[in-house]
């Protein structure tokens, strides 16, 4: 898979409540709850750091996981979050829009 970049969508509200990252889509008011690994990816989704690097830095370093398996899981996760409209995914760095 080519290099993947991810960025948080602006039209969401996110708060850490009781140790859970809760995200509400402002588009349709759907509420999402992220687990620990998904939260680590969400927080690192700055649009310019490749997903593989995020996985290496935020997941492999923090949790004892196999890098290849972690990347596969992360790709699946970001695809799901993108489908729900709370994460942007691109094969180019994602520019910050004002």
């Amino acid at each position: 898979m080519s290099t993947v970049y991810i960025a948080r969508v602006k039209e969401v509200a996110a708060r850490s409540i009781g140790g859970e990252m809760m995200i509400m889509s402002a588009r349709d008011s759907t509420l999402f709850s992220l687990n620990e690994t998904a939260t680590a990816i969400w927080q690192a989704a700055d649009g310019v750091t490749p997903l593989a690097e995020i996985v290496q830095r935020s997941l492999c370093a923090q949790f004892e996981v196999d890098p290849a398996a972690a990347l596969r899981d992360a790709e699946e996760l970001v695809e799901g979050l993108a489908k729900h409209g709370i994460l942007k995914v691109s094969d180019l760095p994602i520019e910050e829009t004002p």
Partner: protein
Amino acid sequence: MGCAIAQDVVIEIGAMPVLVRTSSPEFLHILRERYSGFVNSAAQPVFEFEVEIVAPGRIPTAIGDDQDLSVRFDAGRWVLERGDFRAELDPALRHGRIWQSATPYAIDAAFRIVHSLLLARQGGLLVHAASVVRNGRAFLFAGVSGAGKTTISRLAPPDATLLTDEISYLRREADGYFAYGTPFAGELAQPGENVRAPLAALYLLAQGTENRIDPVAEADALREVLRCVLFFAHDSELVGHVFDSVCHLVQRVPVRRLTFVPDFRVWELIV
């Protein structure tokens, strides 16, 4: 042909006075009766409505009688449509127009929507909940239809003051959350008292075989309270405000699950 003179009434709910102007004496009378405990002619309105009374079949709405309420933001105005009314609100001018028949139902719905929109920017919320003041402190009992809001209100002891059995009005103020009485009644068909009190706790209602109070994790409290919040607009900025408000609320006000049998003894737990 006679010329009807417009008259107005200021209805203050949740410390938010709204002026309603109409040239229909019949409708003005309905308003004064329906909101009798909430009329405050001395208050400075934060919003004004012009109400035009039209025959039921002539309301300028594209929504059918069997369709749900539609709320949209269009060209700087909120447009609210239901089978029985159309309203256009300009938040910048704090002015709105309503076309409806001479019944209290449409203006009641419009009030709920306007208050939810105004409150959203102030950290306040309208919640599907009964609320009651006891010993100077307010308690909210939240739940969807059938959860027991009216039942718990009906069981309240004589020393309790009912704020509402249907829609609770919460404001975030400098020294915490306050619950206000509302005229929005449920099955009890009785408006709340027009008083306010600091919010002591929010109970998520569940009917069971015993009376008990259980803790609720913050994340679960957020999910459940969000389900009970009245919010009509699909506007990303306002949805964000409402989400932030509920997060703030559940982190500062105790949220508990109240399981109860429909019996007055449940009130022994609420002190």
